[in-house]
């Protein structure tokens, strides 16, 4: 009987996706006959069967991405019962030996926290951080590693092969690799092992791993009942049964890295991240790891603008061919304030602050499967109608996927408008390399005190996430107050007349 594993197609390749099975369970196969296809980066590879016999069981379904060395299928004589074969394989499946954090392709990020990130809720803050734990219980992973190594083609003493990631990590944390026990194929030292050594040695992990650990653990905790999550891999129920096309996986929370095979229960569905989703994930995570984010909120009286808009909206729509929204008002007021507060419009580049005499305003637009932030260039030179046209044009083309590449780059500040969906207030993540992002939420009628009487007014919460490396609280507040003043007092008629 032969075990079919995810082959390693290069020193830096840590995972692969099963694209297609070329044989079905129960079919006969000859030695070296193509058995399945895998995809890594831009390479599809046809993998031949390691043995002659019958494809007894497929353990990883098409579309699944699993670490190198993961058991994918069993080719047997066709005589042994499938159940026997499976029970024998379970302990091995449970320990995908090499699941280091660096992928050559796209910097992946955990799905759950990212999904909520654009609108600002920080999943990391809401989830209890699990104690740092070594990747896999040593005894189990050791066995699995050795076996995986035996099945892989021999390329010399594997324990001596170190990936660049491992070398860098070891160097950065002064880890003596001679003292690290390798759990990868053939006793090879993986990133996991080095990270384990760092934790054990009480060396504080670097910012990246520290920041990653909390959100990473979240999906695992949410997806699994605690007792299972704590169970050693050998006790794991065979989730990768025929009926469930789930990837084999370890159930240790600390092992649930972004690239680890996904554990899906029968009532769950696995959906691989799209390119867009991955790009957003990387961008958002990078921002939270870069900026020293702080947040300030003001309330703005929108009564004048609401009335003005009611008055002109029909004529505007008839003349311009699209609806007048509140976004151009807020953008106009913000642009004006940014010229007065250049630090809020600045970018921290290395040890230098880059200041600008123009505003390129990023406008967050929700599109199918994600969001994109097209840029209104030199928006500070536009009046209300000009901004309205530019925003409508960009948003329309963003939804139609017709933006040019340079139209989503080079923003100096960004605005997000979750209020369109009814939010009262939001805590957005800064769109790097900007220094701040403004959130414009829902306008509602509220009772307010005006001249010692209670009045009903249209009000909105306007808030800003800002990078404390560049901006201080006083400046952030003065800036927001200036935006508020503009919104409450600007003579918009002039803008509309000269559209």
């Amino acid at each position: 009987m032969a075990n079919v594993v995810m082959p390693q197609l290069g020193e830096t390749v840590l995972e692969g996706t099963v694209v297609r099975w070329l044989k079905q369970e129960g079919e006969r196969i000859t030695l070296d006959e193509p058995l399945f296809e895998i995809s890594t980066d831009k390479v599809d590879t046809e993998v031949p069967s390691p043995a002659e016999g019958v494809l007894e069981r497929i353990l990883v379904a098409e579309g699944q991405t699993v670490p190198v060395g993961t058991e994918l299928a069993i080719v047997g004589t066709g005589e042994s019962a499938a159940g026997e074969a499976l029970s024998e394989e379970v302990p091995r499946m449970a320990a995908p030996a090499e699941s280091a954090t660096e992928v050559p392709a796209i910097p992946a990020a955990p799905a759950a926290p990212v999904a909520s990130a654009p609108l600002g809720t920080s999943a990391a803050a809401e989830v209890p951080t699990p104690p740092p734990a070594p990747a896999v219980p040593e005894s189990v992973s050791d066995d699995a590693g050795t076996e995986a190594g035996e099945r892989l083609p021999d390329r010399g003493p594997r324990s001596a092969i170190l990936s660049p990631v491992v070398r860098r990590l070891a160097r950065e944390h002064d880890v003596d690799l001679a003292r690290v026990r390798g759990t990868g194929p053939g006793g090879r030292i993986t990133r996991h092992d080095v990270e384990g050594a760092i934790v054990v040695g009480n060396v504080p992990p670097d910012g990246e791993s520290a920041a990653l650990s909390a959100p990473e653990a979240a999906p695992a905790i949410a997806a699994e009942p605690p007792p299972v999550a704590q169970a050693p891999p050998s006790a794991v129920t065979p989730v990768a049964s025929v009926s469930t096309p789930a990837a084999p996986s370890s159930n240790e929370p600390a092992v649930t890295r972004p690239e680890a095979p996904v554990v899906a229960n029968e009532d769950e569905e696995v959906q691989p991240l799209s390119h867009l989703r991955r790009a957003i994930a990387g961008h958002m995570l990078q921002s939270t790891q870069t900026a020293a984010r702080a947040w300030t909120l003001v309330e703005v009286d929108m009564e004048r603008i609401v009335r003005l808009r009611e008055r002109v909206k029909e004529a505007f729509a008839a003349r311009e061919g699209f609806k007048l929204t509140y976004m151009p008002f807020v953008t106009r007021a913000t642009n004006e304030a940014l010229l007065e507060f250049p630090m809020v419009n600045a970018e921290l580049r290395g040890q230098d602050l880059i200041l600008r005499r123009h505003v390129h305003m990023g406008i967050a637009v929700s599109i199918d499967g994600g969001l994109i932030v097209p840029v209104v260039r030199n928006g500070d030179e536009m009046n209300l109608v000009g901004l309205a046209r530019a925003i409508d044009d960009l948003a329309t083309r963003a939804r139609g996927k017709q933006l040019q590449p340079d139209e989503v780059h080079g923003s100096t500040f960004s605005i997000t408008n979750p209020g369109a969906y009814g939010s009262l207030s939001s805590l957005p993540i800064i769109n790097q390399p900007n220094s701040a992002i403004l959130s414009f939420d829902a306008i509602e009628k509220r009772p307010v005190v005006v001249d010692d009487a209670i009045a009903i007014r249209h009000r909105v919460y306007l808030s800003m996430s800002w990078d404390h490396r560049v901006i201080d609280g006083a400046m952030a507040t003065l800036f927001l107050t200036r935006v508020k003043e503009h919104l409450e007092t600007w003579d918009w008629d002039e803008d509309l007349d000269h559209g």
Partner: protein
Amino acid sequence: MTRPGWLLEPSGVIEYHRANEAMHELADRRLEDDVPDSLVLLEHPPVFTAGRTSKPDHAVWDEDRFRATGAEVRHIDRGGSFTFHGPGQLVGYPIVDLGSRPDAIGYIRNLEEVVIRAAADLGIPLHRSPVQTGVWSGDRKVCAIGVRIKRMRVTLHGFAINCTTDLSWFDAIVPCGLASTGVTSLSALSGRAVTIRELSPLVRARFSEVFAMAFVSAPATETARFVGAVANVS
């Protein structure tokens, strides 16, 4: 250590399906060790090819509209998403035996290296992207790469470098599924016409250097397989 390799440069514009068939045949024979490692350099008429990971939303148009432009649409077996081949684009199909322990990603990085060095010979600085395969200038792609490895040994498909390509063809697709990036050409970057004829010898030389391969011209009958033997002989 330099290995001998065949260079195949079928002249004229080569139909995609013809080249695809001949390339697969060559790879089959490479697996049998009947032929040495080879590099095929050619130019295609307009054709949109969809790799295995292509999704409907990577195409801006539907297939009928593609065909209305006179271009073909082909669903093929390489990695990657949609791409375009056509006049003014140098396409390279290396048929290389990567051995019994193939380093697929190392191979891709080598292809990128060939293109980066060849462009540098023309004074055009190109680079890799930290997140996406291909060769780039800024956030614009100059060279697309998509590969298939047969029997976990022999490479198929390869690279496509925009020389004088009419870039408006790419409006029809989101190249390789990348919504936020664009496409450019060596000509657009250098402000003058950089032709296939000018680039080919540079790619040949740099490929030879990076892959440690000494090229000899393949027998004419081999090159003819890409053109269509009957038409060529008569």
